[in-house]
C-alpha cells in the first residue's frame, strides 16, 4: 500500500515539476517528488508487527533501520535544495518581476 502511495506522490511531483508554469509550484513538485521517494524508502524497511530498532532486552524483531537513517539525510538535502531554489527564485523575481517558467530558458533577457 505505502509503496503505491509513494509512487502516486512521485508521479504527482513529477507532474508538478513538468507541467506547472510557476517556478514556486515547480519547487513544490520537486518536494513532493522527493517525499514520494522518501516514503518509498521508509516502506522498504517497514514490516507490519515489527518494533522500533532499539536494542534492548527482549526485543528481537525490529524493522530495518537503515532506510530510515538514510532518509534523514535525504530530507536534509531536500531542505537545502528547497531553500536554495526559493532564494534563487526570490532573486529572479526581483529581476524579472515574473515567476513564469519561460524565464528559465532565456526569454526576458535583453
Amino acid at each position: 500500500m505505502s509503496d503505491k502511495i509513494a509512487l502516486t506522490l512521485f508521479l504527482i511531483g513529477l507532474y508538478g515539476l513538468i507541467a506547472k508554469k510557476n517556478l514556486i509550484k515547480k519547487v513544490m513538485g520537486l518536494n513532493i517528488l522527493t517525499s514520494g521517494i522518501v516514503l518509498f524508502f521508509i516502506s522498504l524497511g517497514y514490516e507490519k508487527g515489527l518494533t522500533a530498532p532499539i536494542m534492548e532486552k527482549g526485543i528481537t524483531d525490529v524493522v530495518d533501520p537503515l532506510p530510515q537513517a538514510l532518509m534523514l539525510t535525504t530530507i536534509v538535502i531536500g531542505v537545502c535544495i528547497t531553500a536554495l531554489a526559493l532564494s534563487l527564485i526570490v532573486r529572479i523575481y526581483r529581476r524579472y518581476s515574473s515567476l513564469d517558467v519561460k524565464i528559465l530558458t532565456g526569454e526576458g533577457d535583453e
Partner: protein
Amino acid sequence: MILEHYLAFWLHPFGMYIRLDALSTIFLSLTVILGACVLIYSIRYVKEDRIRYYPLLILFLLSLSVTFTSADLLSFYIFFEISSFIAYLLIIHSRTRAAFRAGSKYIIMTFLGAASIFLAIILIHRQLGSYKFSALGELEVSGRSGLIRLIYVLFIAGCFIKAGIMPLHTWLPDAHPAAPSPISALLSGVTIKIGLYGIMRFLFSTGSLSRLAVSYSLIGFAAISMLAGAVLALLQDDAKRLLAYSSISQMGYVLLGIGVGTNLSLAGALYHSINHGLFKGLLFLCAGAVIRSTRMRNLSDLGGLRKRMPITGIVCLIGCLAISGVPIFSGFISKTLLSRSVEKFFCLKIVFLLTASGTFASYLKFYLFTFSGALPQGLTRVKEVSWSMLLPMLFLAGFSIFLGLFPDLILSKVILPAIAEISIFSSAVKFDQVNPLSALYPLILGGLIYYLGIRTKLFFIEESPLWQRTGSQFRKVSVDRFYTEVVAMIEKACLLFKNIERFSFNTHLLFILVFLTGLVMLLYFTPQGILFP
C-alpha cells in the same frame, strides 16, 4: 642506399619510423632547395609579423621534410596534418578578410582529406596490424575486395584533395592568391606534391600500380584536371590565380604519369614534379616581385614592366618558357617523356596537345600582359626589387635551364634509382630520339589560342558583355559553387536546429520524461540489450 631510423621516444609506445630512399630524396631535395630560396626571398618580401612568420615557415619546411621521409603511414599522416595546419596559419598571414575566407576553405578541405586518409590508415592497420609502408604489400590479399577498394578510394581521395586534382581542387585557386607569394611558391611547389607523393608511395608499396582499375581512374581524373586547369587558367585575370589554376593542370600531368605506370611515364612524372616545383616556385616568386613593387595583381592593370624590372622580366620569361615545354628548358623534357608514354592512346594525345597549348597560351598572357606593352600611368615609378629577392629567382631559373640541358644526368642519377626501387618493371629510361620539333605543335596551337583570345576578349570576361553572360551561365555548374551551397545548406539546417534552444523548460522536461519512458519500453522489449548491428 636506404637509411632507416626508428624514433622510439616520439609518441611512445607507438613510435615512428624515418626512412630516406631515392624517392624521398627527390622530394626532400626539392623541399630544401625551394625552402632555401623562399627563406632568402622572404627577407625583403615579408615585412610585418616576422616574429610569427619565420618560426612558422621553418616549422613548415621541417614538417614537409618529415612527411616526405616518413616510413610509416602514421607518421606520414601526422606530419601531413601538421604541415597542413601550419600552411593554414601561413595562408592567413596577411589576416585580411579574403585570406581568412581562403584559409577556411583550405583548412576544411584539407582536414577532410586528412580525415579520409586517416580512416584509410586505421583500416589498413586493422587489416595488417602495422603502419609501415613496407607491410602494405600484403594489403591486396588481406581481406574482402570491397574493403580493400574502400581503402584505396579513401586514401587516394585524401591525396587528391591535397594535390588539388580536379573535382576536389577548389581550395587551391583561393588559397594560393591569398597567401604571401613565397608561401604560394612553397604551396604550389612542394605542398601539393605531398598528395602525389602519397599516391605514389601508396601504390608502389601495395604493388598495385599496374592494376587497371586504379590506373584508369587516375588517368581519368588526371585528364580532367589537365584540361580544366588549363582552360580555367586562361580565363583568369589575377596573376596568382592564373598560376594556381595552372598548378592544377600541371598536377594532372604528374598524376597521368603515375596512372600510366610504366617506367617511362613514372620517370616523366617524377621529372615533372621536380620541374614544376622549380619553375612554379620561380613564377610565384616573380609574381610576388611584381606585386611587391606595383601593389597590383590583376593582369589587366599591369603592363610594360620589362623596362622597369628587367631582371624579373627575364627570369619570368624563363619560367614561362619552361612551363610551356619549349625545348632546352626543363618542361620540355618531362612533357616529352610523358607524351611518349601515352603514345598508344589517341584520346590522351589529344588531351596532351590541348593542355600544352592552353598552358602556352595562358603563360603568353601572363608574360605579355605583365612585362610588355605600354606602361600604365600609375606604374611609372616602379623599381626593380632588391637583390635578395632576385637571387633566389635567378638561382631557380638557372636550375630550370640546367634541368633542361642535362636530362640524362638527372635521369640516371636521380630518377632512375627511385624508379628502380618502386617499379615492378626493369627497363631503363633514356632521353634520346627526341625530335624537338614535336614541341612545335602545341606552341603553334597555343599561339593561335592566345591570338583568338585577345581578339574575342575572352581573356577578360568581365570586360565584354557577351562573355560575361556565358560566364555567368558557366559559373552555375562550378564545383566550387556546389561545395559552397552544400556548406550553406548544412549551416541552414543547423540554424533550424537551433530553434530547439527556444523551447520552454517544460518542453525540455517533457523530452526527458519521454526519453525515460522510451528507454523503459526499449529495455522492456529487448531485455537482452541492444546489440550491435
